[in-house]
């Protein structure tokens, strides 16, 4: 495969029907109104020279290279800024235009270092291309230094770890500035000065690293020259081939071109035809891929009899034989239900599918759970109860049609950056914003965006607030009666329930801390402001009433008719790349693939026939149940696929006690992670660059993950599972990952139309993908809900038992930041640490002052289950009484202090509410957290 260059139409597409017919260089073409002449020409197969235009940015008209002649029009207008008109006759090439264009090029080249042969962008430079296209043969003003005044010794800014800014090569086309404004929405760049003096600057007199830049790479992507260039390209040279694949970080699921030289990955370039990202990216997917070749990676299987023993490197054969034998021995001693597995949201659908198959068909039980337990399990439960399907209702592009956006417990600009940029774009266009979050997240006030309402509620009161919003809608007559009557059930009961005075904003104001008038205004806006769209994240799910809040939001959407078309819906923003997929693939202990209960005889029958073995009709253990059962002795062996439960799960001491009690812990991972410290078998995993399979993102989009290199460990992860199964006496074999998907498709109705071939043909599909919807279903519940009628659910607010006390007077809530990912196993092994070298504790200056804490102080953070140490940051974004930290670094061990409280319906841990105390530490303690993190049960 050669280096893939997507066509550039010069200016963005316009919506609407193609009704305007015109003639360009004698070719007739018909395009939608508002299309530029430049774009229309490209549709007619004609390339007009250009430098300042590119099709993900609005036209700017500064370079004047794209001039054309139009019959009846004066002069030579720029084709990028001139819209088409019916009957227009355009000429793009003649002698006069050629001469004018060469004149433009001469001016550019005279101020450009002519070091093309040694330039890092050689072969990938639009200035170079345009010199060729316009037929430039001489530069009358001289070039470089001889041309007189120039920018040739302008300095290079190398402060960003991933790209350089070499100002001497800048042609001031402003594409970078516009990319930062329009695509990313950070507005970090400006053009300083005017005319010849104009130059690009990242803020006033600061470097890129010191500026507001979030290193998304949009400017690098937009730059037509070598001015903004990836450091890897400078070091390694231009790549020579591309493979289209999917980012393995977050649930946005961006498509990328992995660009390589031979077998060496040079850069990841966002793919324009990617359904989820349409050419945009964030710092993680764009740049933070170095972990895949990090020397810390485990490359050979390792085994030990006791966790106090040193690891022994062994052959695959021995590792697989050891694992299978020990699993069978343990089952023989303690029963069929004494072993189980945890699947990962980072691995492919195919890899997850075979693990749950191994548990059900080979282990003979349902003890399989997924790390989604600890993040989005309430989404599955809540949306299934109300709408009938455990998934978000919209595609990402739906937000382009939203008029009112309600963001609750999510921080998209940090956790789902590419979707966050898309949302910000819509907000800059005028959509109204309601934010429900204890913290003043960046969205609340950012350039050109200001939330209409920020309901800064007390952590743990989501249900009370969502109910209050519904109360207002019902009691103020704002219900969409026609929708409710036609599409929903159980409304009358719910109406009576929610109308109760105990749900009024006034009644809950003291509890939630949000003024009643603010709640009323927000409810009115959501109900009457046009298309209302709800986006939510872990700030909803990771609560003792996570599932209840999800149902409460579904009630809100149904009551206002905000379901079933573009611009509306209830949309979970998923954490990890394949959270949706791992849930879809039957990783829950009570559900077979496609969310079908294990007690359903017809469904079990399908698998029993295909797999040739009877399946258990009772649910198995969830992750927290596995830990509890390990401690009480009935659960003795666990297989963990690519997940660091020792770091990511709550109440670390409890998790350690459970892991320490296991007779066999098998970990499959890229690194010797925290969990592996408790393991007896460590099976090296593959990075996303080696995987062949699919990921499913937060909008149900199934994207291909294509290998750019063979597995560096010698085996695909699904092959290892098959071999363990075989060694345990069950024949499991696939020739390829594609065959696994074929099995998923024939057994799971929502995946019936999915195959690798189909995905390779159409790019991606959003499930359900079947005969009725061969190209997938971007928006769900359009004519009716999956369950028939949408069901209103009574959502009673029940306060969490986790409350602040005299001993623990503050509430801690946890989250994530842009540059790091989850437990940080990958991002900590990249230059992203430049942005987040440690976890810090944010708290309000008032809470800090009464404790004698200053910005940067080292503090002890303690809860009723544990204690750790971090550095403090004072922040007005926090309400008084609430503090916040991330959990990206093991040394902090933020989960040392989170408790085992959980969502009542799904046992998703209550990460977002922990009563804590914060004390100033006089002497800085460094080994502090590590000390706390040491195993309590088994020393090592």
């Amino acid at each position, binding site marked *: 495969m050669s280096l893939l260059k997507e066509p550039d139409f010069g200016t963005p597409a316009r919506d609407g029907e193609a009704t305007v017919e015109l003639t360009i260089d004698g070719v007739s073409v018909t395009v939608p109104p508002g299309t530029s002449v430049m774009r229309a020409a490209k549709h007619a197969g004609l390339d007009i020279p250009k430098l300042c235009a590119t099709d993900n940015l609005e036209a700017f008209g500064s370079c004047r290279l794209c001039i054309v002649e139009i019959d009846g029009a004066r002069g030579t207008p720029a084709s990028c800024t001139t819209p088409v008109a019916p009957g227009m006759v355009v000429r793009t090439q003649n002698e006069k235009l050629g001469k004018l264009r060469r004149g433009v090029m001469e001016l550019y080249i005279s101020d450009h270092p002519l070091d093309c042969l040694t330039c890092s962008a050689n072969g990938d430079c639009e200035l170079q291309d345009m010199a060729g296209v316009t037929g430039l043969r001489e530069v009358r003003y001289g070039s470089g230094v001889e041309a007189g005044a120039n920018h040739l010794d302008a300095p290079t800014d190398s402060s960003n770890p991933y790209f350089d800014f070499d100002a001497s090569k800048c042609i001031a086309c402003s594409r970078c500035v516009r990319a930062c404004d329009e695509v990313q929405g950070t507005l970090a760049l400006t053009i300083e000065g005017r005319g010849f003096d104009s130059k690009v600057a990242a803020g006033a007199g600061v470097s890129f690293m010191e500026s507001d830049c979030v290193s998304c790479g949009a400017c690098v992507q937009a730059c037509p020259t070598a001015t903004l260039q990836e450091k890897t390209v400078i070091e390694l040279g231009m790549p020579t081939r591309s493979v289209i694949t999917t980012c393995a970080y977050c649930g946005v699921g961006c498509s990328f071109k992995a660009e390589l030289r031979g077998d060496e990955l040079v850069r990841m370039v966002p793919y324009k035809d990617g359904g989820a990202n349409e050419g945009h990216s964030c710092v993680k997917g764009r740049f933070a891929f170095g972990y895949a070749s990090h020397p810390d990676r485990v490359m050979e299987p390792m085994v030990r009899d006791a966790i106090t023993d040193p690891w022994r490197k062994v052959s695959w054969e021995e590792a697989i034989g050891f694992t299978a034998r020990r699993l069978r021995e343990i089952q023989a001693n303690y*029963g069929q*239900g004494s072993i189980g597995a945890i699947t990962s949201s980072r691995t492919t659908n195919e890899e997850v599918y075979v693990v749950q198959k191994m548990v059900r068909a080979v282990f003979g*039980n349902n*003890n399989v759970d997924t790390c989604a337990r600890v993040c989005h399990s309430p989404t599955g439960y809540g949306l299934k109860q109300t709408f009938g399907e455990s998934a978000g209702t919209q595609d990402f592009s739906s937000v382009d049609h939203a008029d009112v956006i309600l963001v609750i417990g999510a921080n998209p600009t940090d956790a789902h950056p590419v979707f966050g940029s898309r949302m910000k774009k819509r907000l800059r266009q005028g959509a109204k914003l309601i934010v429900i979050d204890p913290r003043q997240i960046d969205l609340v006030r950012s350039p050109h965006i200001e939330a209409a309402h920020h309901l800064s509620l007390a952590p743990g009161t989501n249900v009370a607030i969502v109910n209050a919003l519904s109360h207002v809608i019902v009691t103020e007559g704002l219900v969409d009666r026609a929708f409710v009557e036609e599409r929903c059930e159980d409304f009358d009961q719910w109406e009576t329930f929610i109308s109760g005075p105990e749900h009024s904003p006034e009644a809950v104001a003291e509890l939630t801390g949000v003024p009643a008038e603010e709640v009323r205004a927000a409810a009115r806006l959501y109900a009457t402001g046009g298309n209302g769209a709800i986006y939510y994240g872990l700030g909803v799910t990771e609560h003792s009433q996570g599932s*209840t809040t999800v149902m409460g939001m579904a009630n809100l959407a149904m009551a206002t008719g905000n379901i079933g078309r573009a611009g509306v819906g209830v949309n979970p923003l998923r954490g990890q790349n394949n959270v949706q997929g791992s849930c879809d693939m039957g990783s829950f*202990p009570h559900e077979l693939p496609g969310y079908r*209960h294990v007690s359903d005889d017809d469904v079990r029958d399908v698998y029993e026939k295909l797999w040739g073995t009877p399946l258990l009709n009772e*649910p198995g*253990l969830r992750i927290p149940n596995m830990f509890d*059962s390990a401690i009480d002795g009935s659960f003795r062996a666990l297989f963990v696929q690519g997940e660091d439960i020792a770091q990511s799960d709550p109440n670390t001491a409890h998790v350690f006690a459970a892991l320490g009690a296991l007779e066999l812990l098998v970990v499959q991972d890229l690194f010797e992670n925290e969990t592996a410290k408790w393991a007896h078998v460590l099976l090296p995993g593959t990075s996303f660059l080696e995987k062949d399979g699919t990921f499913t993102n937060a909008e149900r989009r199934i994207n291909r993950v294509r290998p750019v290199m063979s597995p560096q460990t010698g085996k695909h992860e699904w092959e290892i599972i098959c071999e363990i199964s075989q060694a345990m006496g069950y024949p499991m074999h696939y020739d390829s990952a594609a065959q696994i998907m074929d099995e998923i498709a024939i057994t799971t109705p929502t995946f019936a139309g999915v195959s690798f071939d189909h995905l390779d043909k159409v790019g991606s599909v959003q499930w359900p993908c079947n005969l009725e919807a061969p190209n997938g279903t971007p928006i769900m519940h359009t004519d009716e809900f999956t369950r028939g009628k949408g069901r209103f659910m009574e959502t009673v607010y029940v306060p969490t038992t986790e409350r602040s006390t005299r001993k623990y007077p503050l509430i801690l809530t946890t989250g994530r930041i842009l540059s790091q990912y989850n437990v940080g196993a990958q991002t900590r092994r990249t230059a992203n640490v430049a942005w987040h070298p440690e976890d810090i504790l944010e708290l309000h200056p008032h809470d800090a002052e009464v404790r004698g804490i200053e910005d940067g102080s080292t503090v002890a953070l303690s809860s009723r289950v544990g204690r750790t140490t971090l550095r403090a940051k004072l922040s007005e974004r926090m309400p008084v009484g609430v503090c916040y930290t991330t959990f990206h670094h093991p040394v902090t061990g933020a989960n040392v202090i989170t408790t085992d409280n959980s969502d009542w319906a799904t046992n998703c841990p209550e990460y977002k509410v922990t009563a804590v105390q914060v004390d100033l530490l006089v002497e800085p303690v460094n080994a502090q957290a590590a000390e706390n993190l040491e195993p309590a049960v088994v020393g090592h």
Partner: protein
Amino acid sequence: MSATGLPPHVRLANEIARQFAHREPADAATRIANHIKAVWDPRMKAALISHVDSGGEDLDPVAALAAEQLRPVEARGAQ
């Protein structure tokens, strides 16, 4: 054992029961039992039932009622 000091099956059953505390006890018990049937492993159901049989200390009374409805399922499905 959790920070609350309760055995897990008791703590979890109580958590579920709190969500249905506003309903009539009989109705609440059925809803709790249905939820537990749908998502609990047989050994946890067995542990809950035996906890009830040995006095049901610290168990929400409505959760105890729900446990009664779990008995036949338990008889079929224990491992």
